């Protein structure tokens, strides 16, 4: 079986708090606990961006969290979906236009699913994640993999520009 199958059957979550009040975070924790049990969909909460398919963001993006959020987003492999949980993550909520806040998550990275509510209820979060999985599936179908470099046999050290030119088969600048 290939990796694709696992990715659709057992998506992994990455949860990042960009400045929320913890209200939405504990609701996500509650989702993973026995009563709501998000794990029954095969969803696991893991902290590693390199293994995750779904990024869950809570809270308005503070100025210091912005850089980390972008990095986490870029480190996740394609295809990926982003779920904004809570009023804060959607629009900034009550923290909108405070001096250290950049309002919603979509000011920084593209968002696929918005889960409203303050705090978002666990049922709503589960609905949001399930919706995100559909989007993930769709994204995977029309996903164009990035151009893979041809293998080059390098005998002597070459400079990077020259190397890229050769392996992508284009003249630089054209």
């Amino acid at each position, binding site marked *: 079986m290939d990796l694709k199958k696992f990715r659709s059957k057992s998506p992994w979550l990455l949860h990042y708090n960009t400045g929320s009040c913890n209200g939405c975070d504990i609701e996500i924790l509650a989702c993973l606990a026995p009563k709501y049990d998000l794990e029954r969909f095969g969803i696991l909460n893991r902290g590693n961006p390199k293994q995750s398919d779904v990024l869950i963001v809570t809270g308005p993006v503070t100025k210091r969290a912005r850089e980390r959020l972008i990095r986490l987003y870029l480190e996740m492999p394609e295809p990926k979906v982003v779920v904004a949980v809570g009023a804060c993550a959607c629009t900034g909520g009550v923290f909108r236009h*405070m001096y250290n*806040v950049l309002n919603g998550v979509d000011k920084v990275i593209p968002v696929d699913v918005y889960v409203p509510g303050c705090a978002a209820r666990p049922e709503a979060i589960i609905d949001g994640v399930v919706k995100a999985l559909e989007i993930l599936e769709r994204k995977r179908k029309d996903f164009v993999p990035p151009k893979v470099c041809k293998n080059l046999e390098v005998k002597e050290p070459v400079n990077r520009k020259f190397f890229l030119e050769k392996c992508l088969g284009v003249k630089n600048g054209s």
Partner: protein
Amino acid sequence: MGNRITIPFGSQHVALPEPIKFVFQTENERITSVEVDVGYVHRGIEKACQTKFKYTQVGYVVARVCGLCSISHTLAYVTAVERLMEVEVPKRALYLRLIVSELDRVHSHLLAMGHTAEVAGYENLFMQTFRYRETVMELLELLTGNRVQYDYACIGGVNRDVTPEVAKTLKERLKELKEKCLWIKDVFENDLTLKYRWKGVGVVTKEMAKEFNVVGPPARAAGLETDCRAEFNYLPFDEVGYKMVVRKGGDIYDRNLVRAYEVLNSIEMVENALDSLPQGEIKVPVKGLPDGESFVRVEAPRGELFYYVKGSKKLVLDRVRIRVPTFANIPVMKELFIGMDYSDVPATVISFDPCLSCTAR
């Protein structure tokens, strides 16, 4: 001279739900120095309370400082403004506030205990604790209409009354909850593995607690008798059977036991309050503008919460100052880390139950 290693921990980490950054310098697994950075979630709430929001709205804004103890923040602010404006709050409203704030304590303590269990490797106990915590959440939803942000207290009273049917259901479910909490207390007190793991780890002595001004369950676990519920008169705690829980050990084990006993005491208090709920209004109209200054100390689940409010006959307040319990506990944490094994760090941090949203605001 051993192996010197620098271990960064955070700001995004598998074990941490909140962004906090530690940089540990270790030497042969022993920590020699530590740096803490807590400012990732700073939003500027104090400033916004002084510029953007009217004094009647601030109660709902400060609830968003922290989702775990939102009622404590609202309660503190509301009490401070009521003292400024000399509002006589009806007895029934005070009782209802007490009920919600104690239920909030129950859920927060259960969360903290479950989290400590998880860090010690007890996944099952964590799940059980969370399962029982859901009961409290349901009760709170029944009572206030929301699971996390209650927005229950307002200036002059409370926003929502409790009907006899709800009170009846509450009492029934509380009985159920009490048994479960007794079971949890039993496990935390008598389980041999947990004892071995937690006894004598991260000890805060009484002198240390006094010197660093520790608050909340860590202080009470170290034998320091400090509790705002007994010291500052903001709700009628002595009428409903409040007992202070003090233990001597000061280690992780005792901190958890303080929480376990407090949970039982809180449930008892809620039961008593429901039995002797006075009749009458739940809210009085408030006229005029706040003038002068006042401060309030409230016992949040994590310890003493301090609010200072200053107004000068304007719709917008001059100053709102918040001092949160975690802020008071950080110095002693830093002191504890030095000389400790690195493997004990997560359990110790979690047993203090830090809340960074509160600290950074």
